């Protein structure tokens, strides 16, 4: 049985892991909240962003992943915006099921293009601070993981402020609530939807910069996070940032403590158990709105 010190350290590890899950999930929940679609290309786009961080870090550019954060985030936003405008919005003809299929197809194209361009080789980046550890009581936390946890909180806060204090945020909320009504009051719905998609993908850009100091990238690495992101989005409530934040941290803790109690394999069972329990009690998720 794990000691209290080990459990505390496990709790901290879970929170740190949850921070990354939050970053991946918050983009997905924004996309769902506004566009009402599950973006099946989310994992593939995360992988692409991670490769961007890797390529910027490699010589001759030699850009640190944290320094690359504004570039990769902006680039990811631009990519997401263009993907929606040129592909998803254009070919879906307004039908949700078409959007689903387009994102699925996009995922396949991106994965195989990455495999062709980068081969199946696993790439890592080695930064000087990757090995720096911060002591939090009995827990030792790698500095990059602490940074990514803090960044996840900041990004969620910024997104919250964007949604509530800016005109584009109000427009996004209006389109999410009632698309036709938003159109009637003069909101350019297509532009807002493309912007929402762009913001969702920009979150992946940030997640990639925060992940790379401690993780690896290969053409299949994005999918390891996106499956859990789907769980968090449903658990937290579709379209809810608060839900994605709390859901992500909860899942991180459950996964970590479950792994300590039951072993790394069986410990994963905690995630679907918590998921089922919460949906039984609150079918729309922790902070989801009933429609």
């Amino acid at each position, binding site marked *: 049985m794990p000691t209290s010190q080990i459990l505390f350290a496990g709790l901290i590890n879970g929170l*740190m892991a949850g921070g990354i899950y939050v970053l991946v999930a918050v983009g997905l929940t924004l996309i769902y909240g506004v566009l009402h679609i599950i973006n099946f290309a989310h994992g593939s786009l995360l992988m692409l962003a991670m490769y961007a961080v890797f390529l910027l870090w490699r010589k001759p550019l030699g850009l640190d992943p944290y320094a690359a954060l504004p570039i990769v985030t902006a680039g990811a936003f631009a990519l997401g915006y263009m993907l929606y405008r040129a592909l998803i919005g254009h070919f879906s003809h307004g039908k949700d099921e078409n959007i689903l299929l387009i994102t699925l197809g996009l995922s396949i194209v991106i994965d195989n293009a990455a495999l062709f361009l980068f081969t*199946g080789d*696993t790439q890592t980046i*080695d930064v000087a601070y990757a*090995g720096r550890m911060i002591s939090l009581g009995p827990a*030792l936390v790698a500095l990059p993981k602490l940074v990514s946890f803090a960044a996840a909180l900041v990004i969620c806060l910024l997104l919250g402020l964007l949604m509530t204090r800016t005109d584009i945020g109000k427009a996004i909320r209006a389109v999410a609530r009632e698309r036709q009504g938003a159109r009637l009051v003069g909101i350019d719905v297509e532009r807002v939807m493309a912007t929402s998609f762009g913001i969702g993908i920009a979150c992946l850009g940030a997640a990639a910069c925060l992940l790379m100091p*401690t993780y690896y990238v290969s053409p299949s690495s994005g999918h390891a996070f996106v499956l859990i992101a789907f769980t968090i989005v449903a658990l937290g409530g579709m379209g809810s940032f608060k839900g994605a934040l709390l859901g992500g941290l909860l899942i991180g803790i459950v996964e970590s403590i479950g792994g300590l109690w039951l072993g790394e*394999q069986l410990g994963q069972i905690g995630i679907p158990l918590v998921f089922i329990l919460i949906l039984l009690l609150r079918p729309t998720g922790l902070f989801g709105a009933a429609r």
Partner: protein
Amino acid sequence: MTQWKVRRQAVTRRGFIAGSAAAGVLGFPAVLRAQARTVRVGLIHPVTGFVAYSGQQSRIGAAMAIADANKAGGIKGMGGATLEAVLGDSQSKVEVGVSEVERMNEAGVAAYIGCFQSPVGIAASQAAAKYNTPFIIDVGASDLIVNRGLKNVFRLKPGFGKCVDDAVVALGEINRAAGSPAKSAVLVHESGEFGTGTAKLLAGKLPSIGIEAKELIPHDNPTRNMDNVALRIRGIQPDILIMSNYVNEYTLLARTLHQQRVNLVGMFSVLGGGFNYRLARDLPDVAENMMDYNHWFNPKSSKAQDLKRRVEATGALFTFEVYLTYNSVMLLVDALERAQSADKDKLIEALTASTWSTDIVPYGPTRFVNGQNEGGRAVGLQVQKADIVVVHPAEYASAAAVFPKPRYN
């Protein structure tokens, strides 16, 4: 009557010429067909999916071997027949590997080489057995592959049983030479056939060299986070950590342990999927003094060094997948030469009786017993100053093992 006689003579002369031509085509088909003959070889590797890197490396080795064999004149015993690769992607999935066997059977392959992953190799070779088509396993480690009594299955490299036996001997010798600082171990392994089989064998044999296996920690593929594994290892405080996993999780675990400053007498993997030049060069601090018991090329072989140069000139790393698959193709070429035919029964017979040898890897002459080559072996390796050196056995060693590894401050 005269007309009839003339007709008879005309038929006889023309008939003789036509008959001679027909006899030439029908009577000596092998000679005529051999001039344009190709022998199709099915290559099944996971070039997509979570072990895509390893599959792609295997394919590099196979392509190079086929090119070399064809350049050297093809299969001389078959009139210079050339090898033609029929490529298949198992997508790291068992069912896809099996369907590739079926597809390639339709394409008329004479033999298969594959599949990197043990579960895929087991299922695919079973499917090939229906057609009595030889199946050469290039990298699969599980001993289940060769313990099924299938006459069509051949594995040139040693399985995890032999690798574990030799690894335990090596670890025992290295530990004793250092004064036996290692008395306990934790084994972290991937939860599939390769990792579980290797870990269980190791756990049973470690006590024979005075090391207690305190815990076996399985993990899935892929694993996002190894922090808790590192935490458990720190809690158990073993002297050595033994890993058996594929490349991504191997790298992630090694990195996490380094970040968490987990002090160990040594890190020793058996068939460590991520122990390669990329780990040593990209993460030198993480990899320094890590040891692995794995398939390796013979550093003293000029042929191996030449192959290494050629592979590295393409931008690829010279990993074990490359030369193990290269050798598997060359084994097949030798068998085709001796069988002088791509007939499946003859080819299986030729493979069974094979004594083919190469100095690219530190193997003795081939000797198949129930499909397993008894002449193969792995070697003890260590990362020293961002390079990989052979540390065991002495006849192939290029450096002494650094053991115990220096502690973290």
